[in-house]
């Protein structure tokens, strides 16, 4: 039984390391191919690294759990994961708000410019007819 649970934990750690490394490389590759802008990728890169560290350093999770008073260390992982998701989603809301504001301004300017352009064309037509 002893050896079985050891094998299990070891396997889980391997999967955790592989998973977080793949996630990290995936994010880096997206940045490299300019699919994510650097300024929007900071949180992803940061939490990708956090997950790699936590999967390599098993005691670390115990320390963190103890420090924040979580009795069962794996719960701490969930907590960190949730925090990461929250921060990234809030960042998305900020970016979306900024984009929609920029969009609104552009729409207004395009609308006004189209009107001015139509007016100018009209005037030019009147001039050439006169």
């Amino acid at each position: 039984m002893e050896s079985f649970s050891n094998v299990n934990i070891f396997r889980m750690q391997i999967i955790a390391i592989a998973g977080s490394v793949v996630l990290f490389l995936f994010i880096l590759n997206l940045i490299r191919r300019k699919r994510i802008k650097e300024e929007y990728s900071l949180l992803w890169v940061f939490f990708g690294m956090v997950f790699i560290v936590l999967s390599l350093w098993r005691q670390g999770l115990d320390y963190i759990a103890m420090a924040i008073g979580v009795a069962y260390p794996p719960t701490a992982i969930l907590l960190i994961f949730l925090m990461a998701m929250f921060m990234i989603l809030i960042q998305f809301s900020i970016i979306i708000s900024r984009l929609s504001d920029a969009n609104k301004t552009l729409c207004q300017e395009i609308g006004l410019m189209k009107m001015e352009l139509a007016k100018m064309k009209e005037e030019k037509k009147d001039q050439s007819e006169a």
Partner: protein
Amino acid sequence: MKDKNTPDNVLIVIPAYNEEASIGALLQEIRVLYGGWDILVVNDHSADRTPEVVRRYKGTMTVDLPRNLGIGGAVQTGFIYAARNHYDYVVQLDADGQHQPADIIRLLEPLKKEETDVVIGSRFCNGKSSYRAGFARRTGIRIISFFCWLLTGKKVKDCTSGFRAYNREAIQFLSEYYPIDYPEPEAVIMLIKNRFRISEIQVCMHPRKAGKSSISFRRGTTYYMFKVVLGMIMTAIRPKTRKYGKLQ
């Protein structure tokens, strides 16, 4: 366009979203009452024939927004145009025919006497209502007015009315920032916070002739109330942004 140095330099701004059924009659009435005044219709990417109807009224300016921005974005387009072209006053009214053009001149009066910066055409002045709104809507407006009083200490009876007139300073201010969805109550708070004077004048409102209210049908009353109240509170706790003009 009129001579920019005359005191009667007014731009009538009409935000329009799918108002083909009512906007023609409105423009006709305005033309009869106020021939020669500048009118700017902001067509908020209507799906119907609103722009075609407007173009039949020669001399009316139309901005066709390439995407639907919502009433706030449309009205603000009018403010931007007015600010850039140095209009002294803007009158904003709805395209659905519930605001009567005959009242425009009354809305402008206090502005021209420089008694105030913004005039709201209110359906609740003098205690009695000139407008038979449903119970839910009346209650909603009461709640909004209560919050307005709570947040600013000023009593504005009809914060939701979209029938308003502004002087040059208010136009400049609102062209820089204006809320998007259901902007009217937020704009009131914003103006009061930034020391603009607001007064109300009782006007008659018709039940809408056609089209749908942007409040009860588009997205639901609950969303409306939450959005408006949150927006009002946030506007109230934001710092003042007005940088120019004589503060009262």
